[in-house]
């Protein structure tokens, strides 16, 4: 039996799409969490952090309930667009976005909170708009937080198992590397399981090396 590299392609595609979506969603959400004076902000913070403590099977189960063809969200997509979310790549992305949410939001929130308010206000008093200030002053000064959020989200998505098993199952189009390891072990193909595991191990280690190396460099201003 030949070694199947397709699960890695699916894994990295999923990780890239999830990271991209979470970056776009995470920046405004983290900004709001860092600056909101809403007295129930802690509720939002707890919700964002939930995937850190929730068993992946619990999250996977509820997301599956929502996404299957008769669920609230899945039912709508099925009837409106004739698209099934459960056991599809799109469903995997939705589950991954929810599961990796704190890995993007928390570093970004900490990054925003560490910035002195006076640099933002100084830019305003120099005539710069909120967007220019965000792009030229705030983002460049929280590069370590950006890198941490991006890399941890990517790495965490690469290593997902429980949530993707529930939402994606073990179909060819949704089989990611972690599922392939599980599948190989079940079929007693230990050599394949070794290869999948080694590649995931190497990627995870490289990712952490990148984070620690560049975070040190990016902090040098």
């Amino acid at each position, binding site marked *: 039996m030949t070694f199947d590299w397709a699960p890695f392609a699916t894994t990295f595609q999923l990780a890239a799409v999830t990271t991209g979506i979470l970056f776009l969603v995470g920046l405004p959400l983290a900004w709001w969490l860092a600056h909101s004076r809403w007295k129930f902000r802690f509720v939002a913070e707890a919700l964002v952090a939930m995937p850190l403590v929730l068993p992946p099977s619990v999250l996977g189960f509820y997301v599956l309930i929502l996404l299957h063809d008769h669920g609230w969200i899945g039912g709508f997509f099925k009837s409106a667009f004739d698209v099934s979310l459960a056991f599809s790549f799109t469903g995997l992305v939705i589950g991954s976005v929810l599961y990796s949410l704190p890995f993007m939001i928390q570093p970004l929130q900490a990054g925003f909170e560490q910035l*002195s308010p*006076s*640099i933002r*206000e*100084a*830019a*305003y*008093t*120099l*005539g*710069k*708009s909120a967007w220019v200030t965000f792009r*030229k*002053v705030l983002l*460049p*000064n929280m*590069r370590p937080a950006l890198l941490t959020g991006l890399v941890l989200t990517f790495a965490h998505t690469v290593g997902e198992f429980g949530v993707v098993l529930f939402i994606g199952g073990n179909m060819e189009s949704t089989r990611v590397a972690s599922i392939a390891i599980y599948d190989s072990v079940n079929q007693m193909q230990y050599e394949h399981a070794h290869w999948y595991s080694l590649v995931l191990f190497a990627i995870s280690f490289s990712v952490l090396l990148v984070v620690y190396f560049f975070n040190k460099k990016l902090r040098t*201003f």
Partner: protein
Amino acid sequence: MLDIALYKQFGNKKHPVEIRFEYRLPEGKILALFGASGAGKTTVIRMLAGLTLPDSGYINAFDETWYNKARSIHLKPQQRSIGVVFQDYGLFPNMTVRNNIRFGLPQNASDHLVEEFLNTMNLQAHADQKPSTLSGGQKQRTALARAMICQPRLLLLDEPLSALDHALRRHLQSELLHLREAYGTTIVLVTHDREEVCRIADEVAVLDRGKLVRSGVTAEVFGMKVAAAGTAALKGEILSVDGKGMMCILVGYQLLELPVPSHQPDLKPGDIISLKVQP
């Protein structure tokens, strides 16, 4: 003319502070907001800058209305002709000194102006350094250059000299006066340093728990007796004299450290001495 009336409540329910600040400052003058911590000086500066919204009142600055509650006018900081030097300077850590100073200028602005300000502020040698490598004085000069380069009509300074040593503070006070002369900028300065007020402010507004308790020309407010054109006399009590020929003097409620005059080597703690202040 800067014509302002600002009202704002802040603090918590147990200790509310109400700011009531009304003032008319002629263009080109330096006004010092003087008072203890918590008097509301910084809040006044922030309201002038548009960074804090007043509860009511108005700001008429140089024939424009920047804020008027009754007419629902509230110009954003970007729309006001202001330069602000924050207490912590607010320099952009990712940019060099040159780029910090250049930041407020339009993209197509000539580098000539930046070089001129680098020269004026004696920052040429540090132009390519990041703020984290600068001393307190260099940071302060960078912040001042950045605030001044767009030639704002109103310069707001929030205790910018408080973290500096005495000699550097005096040097930068002189630079501030020089900038005012060169550009005719109206300046509002927050300080709790009475010496600083006497040295550079034309007018002073004394705030106590948000209320304007005294205001007017500096020499009159602080009861300084004008001895001659451009000089003023102060009385102080010597608190201590150290072995290195330095004495600590209490003037009002400001401590000054000065060398013991060579013609009066016998001065001792408890002696009252006269000081002449020259702007």
